[in-house]
């Protein structure tokens, strides 16, 4: 008889050959993301810590991150659009995973390309936001006219680190999408778990953004 309760959980994980019924790559991606979670957590905790420790006043995010349309500043409008785009890209990614398991190579390819395009536009808007902060507002990593120097330091460091993750994800998506298209995986047994593995990474990057958004723009 199979044990139940806590013992059953231990039983399941400690069975022979493999602890999780999934391919190696997927297990490894989960473990990597766990490690990456600790990187972003350290960044965000570090940011909160310097924000509490600094003696200068913290700039007001809704004013710093406002865009003017026709003379009227709208708080957080750009970041709202960016967040919307990134979350939309998680939707197209999920559809790509679905199509991958249905072995619909064409749809998988185009959905992954769409995801990559949304990701690229996110990075593009981030570049726009950085340029505006640097050129128009005079924000630098070592100081800014609005208040505490740590504002610019942590903003550029954390959004930069996240932006690098998104950029890497875009490249990763395009490489895998191209392999899906040219039949690379057909020669290897026709399995498309790799689309889900890519998706895990992509959803993770989106999820991290939600936290950065909350702690940076809404606090």
């Amino acid at each position: 008889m199979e044990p139940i309760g806590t013992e059953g959980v231990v039983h399941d994980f400690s069975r022979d050959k493999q602890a999780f019924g999934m391919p190696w790559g997927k297990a490894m991606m989960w473990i990597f993301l766990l490690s990456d979670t600790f990187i972003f957590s350290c960044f965000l905790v570090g940011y909160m810590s310097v924000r509490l420790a600094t003696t200068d006043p913290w700039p007001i995010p809704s004013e710093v991150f406002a865009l003017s349309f026709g003379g009227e500043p709208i708080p957080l409008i750009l970041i709202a659009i960016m967040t919307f785009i990134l979350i939309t890209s998680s939707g197209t990614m999920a559809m790509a995973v679905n199509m991958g398991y249905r072995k619909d190579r064409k749809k998988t390819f185009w959905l992954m390309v769409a995801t990559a395009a949304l990701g690229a536009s996110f990075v593009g808007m981030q570049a726009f936001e950085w340029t505006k902060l640097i050129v128009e507002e005079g924000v630098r990593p070592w100081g800014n006219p609005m208040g505490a120097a740590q504002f610019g330091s942590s903003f550029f460091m954390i959004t930069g680190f996240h932006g690098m993750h998104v950029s890497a994800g875009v490249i990763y998506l395009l490489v895998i999408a191209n392999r899906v298209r040219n039949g690379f995986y057909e020669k290897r047994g026709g399995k498309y778990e790799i689309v889900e593995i890519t998706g895990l990474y992509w959803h993770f990057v989106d999820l991290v953004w939600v936290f950065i958004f909350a702690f940076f723009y809404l606090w």
Partner: protein
Amino acid sequence: MGYVAIADRDHEIEHHDPQTFITKYVWSQDHKVIAIQYAGTAIFVGVIALILSAMMRLQLGFPDTFSFINPENYYQFITMHGMIMVIYLLTALFLGGFGNYLIPLMCGSRDMVFPYLNMLSYWVYLLSVIILLISFFVPGGSTGAGWTLYPPQAILPGTPGVEWGILLMLGSLAVFIVAFTMGGLNYVTTVLQARCRGMTLMRMPLSVWGIFIATILGLLAFPALLVSAIMMLLDKTIATSFFMPAISSMGVDPGHTGGSPILFQHLFWFFGHPEVYIVALPAFGIVSDLLSTHARKNIFGYRMMVWAIIAIGGLSFIVWAHHMYVSGMNPYFGFFFATTTLIIAVPTAIKVYNWVLTLWEGNIHLRVPMLFAIAFIFTFIHGGLTGLFLGNVTIDLPLSDTYFVVAHFHMVMGVSPVLVVFGAIYHWWPKITGRMYNETLGKWHFWMTFLGTYSIYLPMHYLGFAGVPRRYFAMGNTDFLPESAQTLNASITLSALFVAATQILFFVNVFWSLRKGPKADPNPWDATTLEWQTPDTPPKHGNWGHDLPECHRWAYDYSVPGYEDDFIPQNVPADVAPVGRDHGVEH
């Protein structure tokens, strides 16, 4: 949809054995070759760190004698000695070296799950070592900030190596973390997903358990070091103020404002304390296997040993601030961290009792690996007991930054793991090289090292109680210290030089064995674990020939009653030989 485990696949993945010298020994994807590359590199930098410590001891034992050691050099020696020993030697050797070699062999796998990534891991590690070594030769030399690299002093003028050394150190650490992550993901995934038929988690040898949990700790702790390295690089290069408060340095305002040096300490020790167990847990695991094998007795309390490793690993993440009692933190924090720190003594004591009980009524063979393993129990108990002093806030305050601390951590995470490293090298040497080492030479190496290290570190405790501060270049005129303190320092130096020189015996043994050592039996210790049951010694690429092994019992069927041999290998079926105690799950 189900995923077919590799042990269940009808057709094995075909193995194209590498043919040329380059693919076989240089750009090798074989976990065994990568393990040897890792170990060789780690031992090479370890020898450099050993020489640095000898230089430090020369200065401390005989101040004003050696004109080639000035205060700047001394701080550089301290820093590089500490950083190399902890990260580039012990972490790399236990996980990159033993982890790579033992995990696939002990789990009955052909290789790591992603051999190419594994190969990259080694070459990136080598890059980090090269960056580290370059820092000896740049203008200003390597950093002298102490291995903890505390800001603000680490990046302000007045500290040696502030020009380039600190940049290269932080860069090298970041590269090392990338290398470790690539290897670590492989080790964890291999243990979880690529074991052979019958190898349940609760049948794995404790060596694998120790390395497995230590790797998980590394994957979760190194991020904090990476983040603090990035932040400090930014503080140094573009004058951000993460860790830097408004400060005047030598009459100049470097332009920082409002940063928090304590934040660095928190991040550093959030990495730094688990790091202690990244080094210790593999040693715990390996020593368990050495004791059991050479005492011809099953490990006492296997299941508790596993849970103790997991508990220690978990607890190691909530004790970090016991390194910061003197930083002026809230007394309630001190209370919390002292409590969690002392709780770690419970699973650790379980392990120590179980090692001793494994020896009890065992059929002990005092071969070289066993001598090192038993010596580990001694040094680890000594280092652990002084940890109880330092874990308590009120006792730590006067002892902080004295030689008592130096003695404590060298005993518990210097000498103890290194003894296990030596024991493990002697133990697996016949499997790795196919040749035996010289037993007599090995025993000389053991006794001189073991007694020598005691004569170094026991007196240091007295120095610490007397109040001798650590990290001082010279004591100068210090009224509160008796003159005998300096005599003791000189004697410690002589012992340290003796122990350092003794290590030549080890290298002589290595080279003698490689050239002239007698051919080794495939299983010279009559051990049960799978790595001794390979068809070839040393194992060939792919480890197992045509068929993967099958595991039928736990790793500790020694001296099972009613069986003619005193050991039953893990791959012997239950209908051929009786099964001793087995925590494996039937399937």
